[in-house]
């Protein structure tokens, strides 16, 4: 069982939930930019939620299935088609041997996840299959996927096998077959001017009163100098009340730091482990997938919530994911 990369497109790489446990050695965490969609894609095909999947960026990627396969595509709608027919998102899909899946256009969001039942057989480096592109660590040979790469797939679970055989029977003359149900989660990631919830950062009070006000009042745009490491934003310039020396310390995914020039940077999956710039805010974990789906040019606004609210949202999201897990096992049971 394997998937062959016909065209890598703008950027495609292997990612899981990241490389934790080694940040004290300066090892970058990496992992899926939109971890929510990665988890969903895996659950839909009976995998452990942290299995590695292909993270497809924007468009142009095409993949060929060398055997009959069971996959799920989640995240942004990047116009996935097989022989001109749209492949539905957020549900398990059976794909016939030889079919080519193409990502044709960015319709919403900018990153899609392709999980295969069983997961990809990729060696773990420091307990993770994620690719850290700049450092050449992990994933497929430490690099982005290239034309000709063959990604082997591991054995799928019994539940996934049942689904696989059920859909194969329904296939008929088509090259793919999906179920008639899906996980209603795409709305979480819709584009437009997004309101992103943050809690104040450790140095928030050190910014000038006008900067503190404009951080919440005005909108910011994601510049083209944005990648998996972080998004550079343009908008009102943010200045400190008084400059001061800050000692480098740990940063996290979603930390918004402000270098001297005043343009904030949102740290994302491939961020450095430590930083020395003042941190004006920290994005609530539940809104990180939303931010990860925004592409250069998109606008966003920040709104303040308390730590307690961010924690409640986090716990609620995890309960929702558990409900999806339960729902999926019932669906599979009923086949």
């Amino acid at each position, binding site marked *: 069982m394997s998937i062959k990369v016909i065209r890598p497109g703008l950027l495609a790489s292997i990612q899981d939930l990241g490389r934790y446990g080694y940040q*004290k*050695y*300066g090892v970058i965490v990496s992992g899926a930019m939109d971890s929510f969609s990665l988890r969903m894609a895996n659950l839909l095909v009976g995998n452990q939620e942290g299995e590695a999947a292909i993270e497809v960026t924007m468009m142009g990627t095409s993949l060929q299935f060398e055997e009959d396969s069971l996959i799920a595509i989640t995240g942004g709608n990047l116009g996935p088609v097989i022989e001109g027919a749209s492949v539905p998102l957020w549900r398990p899909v059976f794909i016939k041997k030889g079919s080519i899946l193409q990502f044709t256009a960015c319709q919403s969001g900018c990153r899609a996840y392709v999980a295969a039942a069983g997961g990809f057989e990729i060696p773990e480096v420091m307990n993770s299959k994620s690719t850290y592109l700049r*450092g050449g660590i992990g994933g497929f040979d430490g690099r982005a996927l290239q034309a000709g790469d063959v990604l082997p797939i591991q054995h799928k679970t019994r539940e996934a096998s049942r689904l696989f055989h059920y859909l194969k029977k329904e296939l008929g003359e088509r090259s793919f077959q999906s179920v008639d149900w899906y996980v209603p989660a795409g709305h979480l990631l819709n584009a437009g001017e997004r309101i992103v919830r943050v809690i104040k950062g450790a140095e928030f009070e050190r910014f000038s009163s006008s900067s503190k006000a404009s951080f919440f009042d005005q909108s910011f745009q994601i510049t083209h100098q944005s990648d998996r490491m972080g998004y550079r934003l343009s908008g009102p310039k943010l200045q400190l009340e008084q400059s001061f020396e800050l000692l480098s*310390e740990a940063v996290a995914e979603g930390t918004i730091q402000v270098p001297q020039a005043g343009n904030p940077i949102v740290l994302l999956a491939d961020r450095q482990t430590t930083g020395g710039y003042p941190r004006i805010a920290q994005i609530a974990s539940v809104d990180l997938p939303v931010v990860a789906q925004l592409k250069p040019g998109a606008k966003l606004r920040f709104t303040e919530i308390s*730590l307690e609210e961010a*924690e409640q*949202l986090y716990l609620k999201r995890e309960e929702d994911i558990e409900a999806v897990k339960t729902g999926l096992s019932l669906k599979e049971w009923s086949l």
Partner: protein
Amino acid sequence: MNQRIGLDKEKIEMKPLGDSALVIQLGTEINTAVHKKVRALTILSEKHSFTGFIECVPAFASVTVFYNPLIVKRTYDTENNSSPFQLVRFMMEEIMKQLVEEKEEKPRIVEIPVCYGGEYGPDLPFVAEENNLSVEEVIEIHSSGEYLVYMIGFAPGFPYLGGLSEKIAAPRRSSPRVSIPVGSVGIAGNQTGVYPISTPGGWQLIGRTPAALFHPKHNPPSLLASGDVVKFVPITVEEYEHYQETTR
């Protein structure tokens, strides 16, 4: 080495870094006293880690603890009235109580071979001139020092070292090099460092080490860890080349 590490509770601040991490501030400047607290707390937190603990990241004057809020809440919130941050803060306070009793661990000494000057250290003559020293004197001073690894950050395996003699401090290059080769040993201001990966930079390069500071397949992947003491050992070009051949 049975010295006790006194912790003034009043000065210790715990603050959230988002909804999944907590920062314990142990000081406000870079010095060995603060570093010892950072090191002791890192060792203790790893030894007595709680359910839901992911990892901790030591820095110059703080330790950041990353955790899974859901697991923490479900494991420890028996009364259902505390938030994950409150629970982790409470557990870290308990761990901090033991810090007073913790013995100071002897630092690990790591020798790093360096081939000084020549093509590996093109800026060595500049550093010498800047300080009115001979090239040999710069090598002597640099390789007789003991350097404390305050923290690892910036890049995989990159050590922030303290302890450079002021006698060989030198300003950064006015125009940074597009690419500094792996293993380069440099000076910038009163800092010295070793580059584990190739990167652009403005450091004055005085030598290069054939030793790998970072290897993804080694466990741990980094040659150095926070709290180690580094000694640079001068080697010849022949030794450098031999070292490379035998470790490749």
